[in-house]
């Protein structure tokens, strides 16, 4: 009779396959949260500012203003960031953030939700566990509201535009990296545990050709249109060859990029500035199809568009 060597042998690689991810960032998301935000561009809630940068980053370093804090609507260590924070239109919001820093006041905030494994922590971050006050402006986190679109009732939708003086990442470097990212997912009845290695490549500039028609995203908490989503093919730096097909592009309602999308005909080619984030729609679709247990797959991502113009230069 044959011995059963192979099954025992195979348990080792399967266990070891997951093991190297142990030092990476692990986040445990509630499935209700995934379902709520899988087709939303933004999140609305309140935010307590624990620590904020005294002044915006220099334009060469992206021009953002970081504020670390907590939100009961998110339930994870997080930061919120204003784009083009040195702009005069953003001055009131910058002042309001500084005024609220450290006073533990929960102030209304809206902006693009963003889960990305950029600032890993040793311990898993479990959604809606206790979140201690942030000790500095950039605590270990993988949840961001970035960019902020309104704070304390003051909208700053116009802050979503090109960052003068900043050199974004190029398409080949950034998408080359995104496409190689893996993620381990553990799915149970209530939660999805996602582990992935650290990755940066925040702002990336690229040429994209619309691959289909834009569709409206779900309404936000106020019951108004939150934005649009469209699939697009991303081109290499020279704009000659397709790097990645059918990437989900997220446009926030009321912003310049959303207007550029509205003005674009089918199949238009756009030059975009965007931020990557986890694609919750893909995770939800996978679960709906019966996906369960533990899987190691390519990290699903989509792009939040924060700057856009037609390739002929029309804003």
């Amino acid at each position: 009779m044959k011995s059963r060597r192979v099954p025992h042998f195979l348990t080792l690689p399967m266990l070891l396959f997951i093991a190297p991810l142990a030092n990476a960032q692990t986040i445990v998301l509630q499935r209700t949260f995934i379902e709520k935000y899988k087709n939303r561009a933004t999140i609305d809630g309140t935010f307590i500012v624990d620590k904020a940068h005294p002044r915006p980053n220099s334009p060469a370093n992206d021009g953002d203003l970081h504020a670390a804090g907590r939100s009961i609507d998110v339930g994870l260590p997080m930061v919120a960031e204003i784009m083009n924070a040195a702009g005069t239109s953003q001055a009131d919001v910058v002042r309001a953030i500084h005024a609220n820093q450290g006073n533990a006041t929960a102030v209304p905030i809206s902006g693009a939700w963003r889960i990305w494994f950029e600032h890993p922590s040793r311990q898993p971050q479990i959604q809606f566990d206790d979140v201690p006050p942030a000790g500095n402006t950039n605590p270990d986190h993988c949840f961001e509201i970035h960019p902020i679109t309104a704070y304390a009732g003051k909208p700053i939708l116009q802050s979503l535009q090109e960052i003068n003086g900043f050199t974004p990442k190029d398409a080949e470097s950034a998408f080359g990296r995104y496409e190689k990212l893996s993620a381990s997912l553990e799915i149970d009845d209530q939660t999805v545990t996602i582990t992935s290695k650290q990755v940066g490549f925040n702002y990336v500039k690229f040429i994209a050709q619309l691959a289909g028609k834009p569709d409206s995203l779900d309404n936000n908490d106020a019951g108004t249109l939150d934005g649009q989503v469209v699939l697009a093919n991303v081109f290499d730096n020279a704009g000659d060859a397709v790097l990645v097909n059918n990437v989900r592009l997220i446009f926030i309602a009321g912003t310049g990029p959303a207007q550029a999308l509205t003005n674009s005909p089918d199949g238009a080619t756009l030059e975009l500035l965007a931020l990557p984030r986890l694609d919750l729609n893909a995770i939800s679709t996978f679960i709906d199809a019966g996906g369960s247990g533990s899987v190691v797959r390519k990290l699903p991502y989509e792009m939040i568009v924060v700057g856009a113009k037609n390739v002929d230069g029309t804003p």
Partner: protein
Amino acid sequence: MFGLPILEVAIGLSFVYLLLSLICTTLNETIAGLTGRRADLLEKGISSLLGDDPDLKKKLFDHPLIGSFEQAKNARPSYLPASKFALALMDIVTGDKGAANDAGALREGIKTVLKPALRTSLLAILADSSPKVKSDQEKIEAWYDEGMDRVSGWYKRHTHLWIWILAAVMTIGLDADSVHIFKTLWTNQAIRTAVVESAKRRSQGERPEALIPLVIHNSQNDPKKGTVVAPHNNDVLTKEETSELNDLLIGWKDAAKEWKGKTGWELFGLILLHILGLLFTAAAVTLGAPFWFDTLNRFMNIRSAGRAPGEPRDKSHPAPATA
């Protein structure tokens, strides 16, 4: 049309090599992650770029810009963007003399802070008037990227060596003798038929060169919809594939039984054939899963009596799109 036993044996052998290659690749990736192979080589590459100056290397890795790329506290980064490297180096070199992007302070710092060989290299790089690179930071980034191309080459060579080691260990550990596998497939039609069926299923799956996505967004006018990829396929091998490997691998215990009672040249011949079978398997496994996946598909195409019009030659060479 073709149901030739020899073709089915070829399919069976390709299938076994594909499965063993998949296990080997998984083990290699795991060990690379556990041992920090990428981080080691990155550190070695950066050290080489910095003229093997340990103080400068320490300052660079201690710099807050680099620290943010550690996968965990006190862990070394396994990847470092060129922009962060360039900014951190410029910041260290300029020190208190000025901002990191202050051209004068940078050149002054290079002359005073760095060792002669690195000093000469960096000053030559900054003096480059090529229209492609404009700022000092971009010039240092380009220099770093060239260095990282070397690191990629080292990583590939290390990986190749590890694949050989793992293929040898796994082949010996499982006693995966190609000669025995060939004999079993040739003489046992039941096993051969089951293996070919499993091979067919495997050949219709994803080519094992890349990670499988969760979902593909391919409904171009419905970007909220996606097509799920293999929601239940989470294991390296399926249960059926594992069972078929069991049937085909002889095992040292059974091999010893075969040799029992044999003496002289007969025993020598059996052992020599066994060793050759093991060597052949190990060499085959080092060719990698994508190679065996493509080979399996070619044999499958021949077996299915030619391809239907428009059907891909194999998964690695998709047929051109038609209107």
